[in-house]
């Protein structure tokens, strides 16, 4: 609340004491443009002509927000100083007075210490509203109020005008400065900036825009044309935008460089603004994108090339993949840390768990394979400098879970800076090799066993051979002993037989006198049996001689018919006794044969005696046949005797055999004859053939080579 009680305004009806005084002040104020000067003139005027003993003028300083004295008269320094106060002190009587509608009388009690007199505070000017007040005019005594009120009004109006003019001038200056600043900023922009009306007529343009869109007198024709063209293009672009009716729009604008004549591509960014005075305007910013466009095209080109190169690389990679995949051995490419960068499908089979098969075993196998492989790769780096590393890895086939021993060959791929960029590892299935090695070992073992067996067998053979040799020797000795024994036996038999036959012969010859018929008959039986015994002994001796190889061959040339005649002569007594008919069938000529005559004779004689022996009646026929083609000659002895049953035809050639045991008793003989004949025929490289029918007769044929060879 204002402490001061405003004095009743009394209208300016009161006339001044000095009628000429007021125009003086008006004149002073009229010619002064300075607020402080006006204040001082007013204070001085009041003191001199207004009747005031004391007066102070204080003006509001808007900048500092304080009330400051500017002029004073009849007032002490202390009072003047105390008048400097802040406007934000509403309790202060002066601040209160400043806002009042009437002058405020500062009572003694209310006034500060320095204001003991009856000062009257009048706002400058009183007629204006609180906001337009410029300060206070303090006067004393109060009775000079009418003059003071007028002066305050005059001064207040004057100061208000002065301050308003100052403010306007200040503002215009500021606007000019800002405009210059703005133009500088706009000019500093590397991009052309324009403010135009919607038709494209330029209102404001920066230097860059001027270079494109304006020309001056005296400049080249080309430049003029370029500028004209640019303006047309720009207008066209703007009108296009006007049609579009959108806010800020980006578009491309192709212009010509007036200085160089080259094409320039701009990006046009324009927006419509409403200007309070000019109406609708268009702000356009052009950005030179010629280089940008080129760069973009370059980038696009590069990108295209990159794509092509990438395609090439992909194709190359595909081809590489194809090649790698076609290799049956697993191939892995890892980086230096052991991470797998690439692998072919055989490797995938080992190091990637099968998708559909989610068996834990398969996964375990894959993990185990990974671990083994990583260990192998880390070994490669631990063991240092070599580019290659060879080793064996015991892998497991995830699909079969069978052990898969592989031989791994790893090679480092070095960069230009001798850094390891990758490691290529090729795995080779060793199963087959191991199997082969195993088979080889088996084979070797088997071979060794075989060798051992062969050695054993050889040793056994040697042993047996020695045994055989010993046995052979023993056999030879035994054979010799046997032959010796037989020879001795034969000798021992012959010696008594010699005496028996000799004495029998002598008795029969009547050496000891004639014998009576019964005696002679019995002596004949002794003689016959002794001769039989002798023939048996001779047969046994023959066989033992043949067996012992002690019957040598005596080859000679002889005529077969002569031999036959000799034989027939020898058996003549027998034939006569048997009353058989004898026939011969001999080939024409001499029928020369080379053989052992004695043995041929022995054989045929045996055959003849047999034929005679076993033929009760009928005939005995001797035939000689030559076979030129085979170089053989056959001597056949045929009879019409008892014959031999087919089942017995082989038996007759066996030792001590006749076809029937009863025959032996009936016909005599030891049954060794044919056995000896067969042996002898064999010695002559010949054979004895038999054709026979029981009851119809037999034909024995000795077949020998015409020209026998000495063995």
């Amino acid at each position, binding site marked *: 609340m204002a402490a001061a009680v405003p004095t009743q305004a009394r209208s300016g009806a009161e006339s001044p004491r000095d009628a000429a005084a007021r125009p003086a002040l008006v004149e002073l104020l009229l010619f002064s443009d300075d607020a402080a000067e006006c204040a001082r003139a007013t204070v001085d005027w009041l003191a001199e002509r207004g009747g005031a003993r004391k007066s102070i003028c204080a003006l509001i300083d808007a900048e500092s927000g304080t009330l400051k004295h500017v002029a004073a008269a009849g007032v002490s320094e202390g009072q003047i100083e105390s008048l400097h106060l802040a406007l934000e002190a509403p309790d202060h009587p002066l601040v209160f007075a400043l806002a009042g509608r009437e002058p405020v009388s500062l009572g003694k009690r209310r006034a500060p210490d320095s204001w003991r007199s009856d000062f009257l505070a009048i706002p400058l000017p009183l007629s204006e509203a609180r906001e337009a007040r410029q300060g206070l005019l303090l006067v004393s005594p109060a009775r000079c109020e009418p003059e003071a009120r007028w002066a305050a009004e005059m001064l207040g109006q004057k100061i208000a005008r002065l301050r308003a003019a100052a403010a306007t001038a200040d503002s215009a200056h500021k606007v000019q400065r800002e405009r210059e600043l703005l133009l500088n900023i706009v000019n500093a922009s590397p991009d052309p900036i324009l403010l135009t009306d919607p038709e494209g007529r330029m209102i404001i343009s920066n230097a860059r825009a001027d270079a494109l869109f304006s020309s001056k007198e005296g400049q080249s024709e080309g430049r003029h044309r370029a500028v004209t063209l640019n303006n047309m293009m720009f207008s066209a672009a703007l009108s296009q935008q006007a049609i579009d009716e959108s806010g800020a729009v980006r578009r491309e604008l192709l212009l010509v460089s007036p200085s160089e004549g080259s094409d320039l591509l701009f990006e046009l960014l324009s927006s419509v603004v409403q200007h309070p005075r000019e109406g609708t305007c268009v702000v356009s910013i052009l950005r030179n994108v010629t280089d940008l466009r080129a760069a973009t095209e370059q980038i696009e080109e590069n990108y295209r090339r990159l794509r092509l190169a990438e395609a090439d690389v992909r194709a190359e990679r595909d081809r590489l993949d194809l090649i790698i995949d076609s290799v049956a051995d697993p191939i892995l490419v890892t980086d230096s840390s052991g991470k797998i960068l690439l692998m072919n499908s055989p490797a995938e089979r080992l190091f990637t768990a099968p998708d559909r098969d989610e068996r834990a075993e398969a996964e375990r196998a894959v993990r185990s394979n990974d671990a083994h492989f990583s260990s192998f790769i880390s070994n490669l780096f631990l063991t240092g400098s070599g580019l290659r590393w060879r080793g064996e890895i015991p892998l497991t086939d995830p699909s079969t879970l069978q052990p898969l021993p592989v031989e791994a060959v790893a090679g480092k791929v070095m960069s230009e800076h001798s850094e390891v960029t990758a490691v290529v590892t090729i795995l080779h299935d060793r199963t087959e090799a191991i199997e082969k090695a195993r088979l080889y070992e088996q084979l070797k073992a088997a071979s060794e066993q075989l060798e051992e067996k062969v050695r054993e067998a050889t040793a056994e053979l040697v042993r047996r051979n020695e045994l055989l040799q010993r046995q052979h020797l023993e056999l030879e000795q035994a054979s010799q002993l046997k032959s010796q024994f037989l020879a001795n036996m034969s000798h021992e038999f*012959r*010696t008594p*037989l010699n005496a028996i036959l*000799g004495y029998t012969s*002598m008795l029969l*010859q009547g050496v000891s006198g004639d014998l009576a018929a019964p005696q002679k008959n019995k002596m004949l039986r002794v003689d016959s049996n002794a001769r039989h015994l002798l023939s048996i002994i001779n047969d046994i001796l023959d066989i033992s001689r043949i067996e012992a190889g002690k019957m040598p061959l005596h080859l000679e040339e002889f005529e077969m018919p002569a031999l036959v005649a000799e034989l027939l002569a020898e058996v003549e007594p027998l034939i006569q006794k048997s009353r058989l008919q004898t026939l011969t069938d001999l080939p024409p000529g001499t029928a020369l044969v080379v053989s052992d005559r004695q043995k041929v004779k022995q054989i045929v004689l045996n055959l003849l005696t047999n034929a005679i022996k076993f033929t009760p009646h009928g005939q005995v026929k001797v035939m000689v046949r030559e076979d030129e083609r085979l170089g053989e000659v056959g001597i056949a002895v045929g009879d019409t005797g008892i014959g031999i049953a087919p089942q017995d035809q082989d038996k007759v050639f066996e030792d001590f055999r006749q076809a029937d045991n009863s025959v032996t008793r009936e016909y005599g003989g030891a049954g060794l004859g044919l056995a000896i004949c067969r042996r002898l025929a064999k010695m002559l490289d010949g054979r004895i053939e038999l054709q026979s029918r029981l009851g119809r007769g037999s034909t024995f044929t000795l077949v020998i080579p015409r020209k026998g060879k000495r063995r």
Partner: protein
Amino acid sequence: MSTIAPSTRRPIVLVVDDIADNREMYSEYLSFAGYDVIEARNGLEAIDAAQKRSPDIIIMDLSLPVMDGWEATRRLKADERTRRIPVVALTGHALAGHSKGAQEAGCDSFLAKPCLPDQLVAEIRRMLESGKAAVTTTKGAS
């Protein structure tokens, strides 16, 4: 017998055999056949008898005790006094080697036992005849 008659003496046959039965059988038969017979039981006796009696022919068994027939024959043939006397080997050993060995030893003929007495006589006659012929031829030639 007419061939023997001109000499007015019976030819002397030396029978060498260790078996008495054989020796005596041949002796009896040869005497019966008209020969004078001297007997010997072994090679040594045979040489001694041949040297003392100069037989016309010797019947020599080869398997003999003390001295066998081969050795005795070799000695007889080596001795000027006895070498012209024909030796007929007579053996029960019928093996091939025997006759050959007998020939090598100097035997002039070979007979295998058993040999009947009349066979022996036939051989003696043959040998004596051929020996006379040879001597005659030799004499005639010289």
